């Protein structure tokens, strides 16, 4: 609290919990060996991502690469940026940001992956790219051929995306 002229540093308790006092500030100085250790770990993890990309894990390679990147990120944030020794609120802020980023990602990618859900049952083929002139002519010809053959002209599209 701003203890202007009154010298007492009025620590305020709120139902038993010390109200976060804006004036104390952690002066934690981490030792040099801690930084070098973290730096070494980061270099090792970078080489690890490099190897993982050649290991050819196939579909699993993206989650593994993201996991390694997340570990490297938390090392940088935790030690290089002192978040481990800082006021809890800064870590809370970062977690809220990551929460909003993940909300943004999950909802948009959920929408993109389920766009054809109800349409698929109804047989609507869901085309992503616009038929350019070459494809349009080709599709029109296919449609004529289907009509000539009397088949029900399902909206066949040449070249799925």
């Amino acid at each position, binding site marked *: 609290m*701003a203890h202007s002229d009154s010298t007492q540093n009025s620590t305020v308790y*709120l139902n038993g919990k010390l109200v976060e006092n804006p004036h104390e500030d952690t002066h934690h100085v981490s030792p040099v060996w801690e930084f070098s250790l973290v730096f070494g770990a980061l270099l090792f993890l970078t080489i690890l991502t490099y190897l993982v990309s050649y290991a050819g894990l196939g579909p699993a390679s993206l989650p593994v690469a993201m996991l390694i990147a997340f570990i490297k990120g938390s090392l940088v944030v935790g030690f290089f940026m002192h978040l481990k020794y800082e006021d809890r609120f800064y870590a809370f802020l970062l977690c*809220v940001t990551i929460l909003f980023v993940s909300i943004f990602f999950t*909802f948009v990618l*959920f*929408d993109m992956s389920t766009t054809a859900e109800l349409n698929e049952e109804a047989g609507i083929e869901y085309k992503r790219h*616009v038929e*350019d002139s070459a494809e349009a002519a080709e599709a029109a010809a296919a449609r004529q051929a289907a009509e000539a053959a009397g088949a029900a002209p399902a909206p066949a599209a040449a070249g799925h995306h």
Partner: protein
Amino acid sequence: MSDDSKKSQSGAQSGAQSEAQSEAHKPEPSYLTAQRGLMSWVVTIDHKRIGLMYLTATLFFFLIAGLLAITLRTELFTGQQDFMSAATYNKVFTLHGAIMVFLFIIPSVPAAMGNFVLPLMLGAKDVAFPKLNLLSFYIYCIAAVMLILTLVLGSLDTGWTFYTPYSKTTGTAVIMATMGAFVAGFSSILTGINFVVTTHKMRAPGMTWNRMPLMVWALYATALIQVMATPVLAITLFLLVIERTLSIGIFDPAMGGDPVLYQHFFWFYSHPAVYIMILPGFGIISELITVHSRKHIFGYRAIAMSSVAIAVISFVVWGHHMFVSGQSELAGIVFSFLTFVVAVPTAIKVFSWVATLYGGSIRYTTPMWYALVFLWTFTIGGLTGVYLGTLSIDVHLHDTYFVVAHFHYVMVGGTVVAFLGGLFHWWPKMFGRMYNETLGRISALLVFIGFNTTFMTQFFLGHQGMPRRYYAYLPEYEAMHQVSTIGSWILAVGLFLVLFTLIHAIKYGERASSNPWNAVSLEWHTASPPIEHNFHTTPTVTGSPYDFPEIDKTGKH
């Protein structure tokens, strides 16, 4: 800055010395008269002066966008072309939307009124980063110049939402307008950072989180949204400009992208933005209703927590703008459910305000009238939001005048009415002058009548199927449009009367005491207009900001 320089030159400290111990030597001059000359305004870092500069700029743009709205409504008086061509009409409605959103309603309550009131309410000498505050104002001015420049470069006809692929292919000055909004976003981020840090670190001794006025809670929640949502607007507009210049194809279907992605990016910012617009209005209403009915707020914790809850949930509901836009139906169902979750805290707030009136001693001053008008219009706005959140009804009502009526009820009926109430409430504190009470009440009545005639008819237009942004319409809708246009004229008269009353009060209003409403929160414990660094001695807070003397503590009530 024209009307600021006409400050009263008396300079003498206003009469009553309300501070704890009166100063021995000549009383300190107020922040308006402490320094003289234009330079003292241009390079000021005093949050009160920056607040006034923001107020003048935002009210100026409110005037411009308001006049655009009047020309719109007058053009729509008949179904045929009256005095504008279709292209001009599209440019006018786009500019009405863009200027209102980016240059008036987002900066007005937080930056103009919040800058003035927040440090005073916290008992602080200034905001945490005064220079950053001034930088935020000048970034706002650059954004304003850029949006005015779009007028010169062929104006903008994409709607304030800049939907692609239309905004990619149209020939109007889309790049200059998007860059203007991009820069306005940074001014909003800086204000947001400033307010979050001020609320955390600059509170007076004894002011715990539960002893803060609810206006501070609302500004804090707004600042959090401003910080967390505006960067996504920055990247969206950045991608749009790159799409137009380098056409990277992320939003352009012909090159493999998808326009619905732009809508996801845009609405991820824009729905939290509508809560940036309304949350400060909630804060003002909590202050007005308690002070003018001499009652402790009903459900302090519920209102404070619902401000933060709205701030958080507002990030998960943006899909309800896109139910029929080709978004997947399953995603639509999820968004519709979450939209109803966000409706509950808003309802709690409205019920708590009405409950605050119970057992009070209500003084019908102008701010109180505006608060009551707010309750009427915001309840209608909120309830019609439920219509648009329901999936099947939104299929029918999406992009019709029902949507136009809904968001005007919440924006004009909500934020603007609360803003006007706040202006009347804090005008004595800002300028040390009382406004003319009868003129104020007449303006409240005119605003109420004009507003409701204009936008109530648009609900019926909407459910009759009248599409939005239509320049010419079917004859069936003509009668309702005419009623709406007449209503908009009444609303315009009401707003001009407000402007006149307030400006007139600065020069000719009689002197206001430091606590005309004998309120309890900290900003009323210093002189009005306040001295340069707010308080002689930093006040210590012992109780809640709503412990009015009239509250009967004897328990017999």
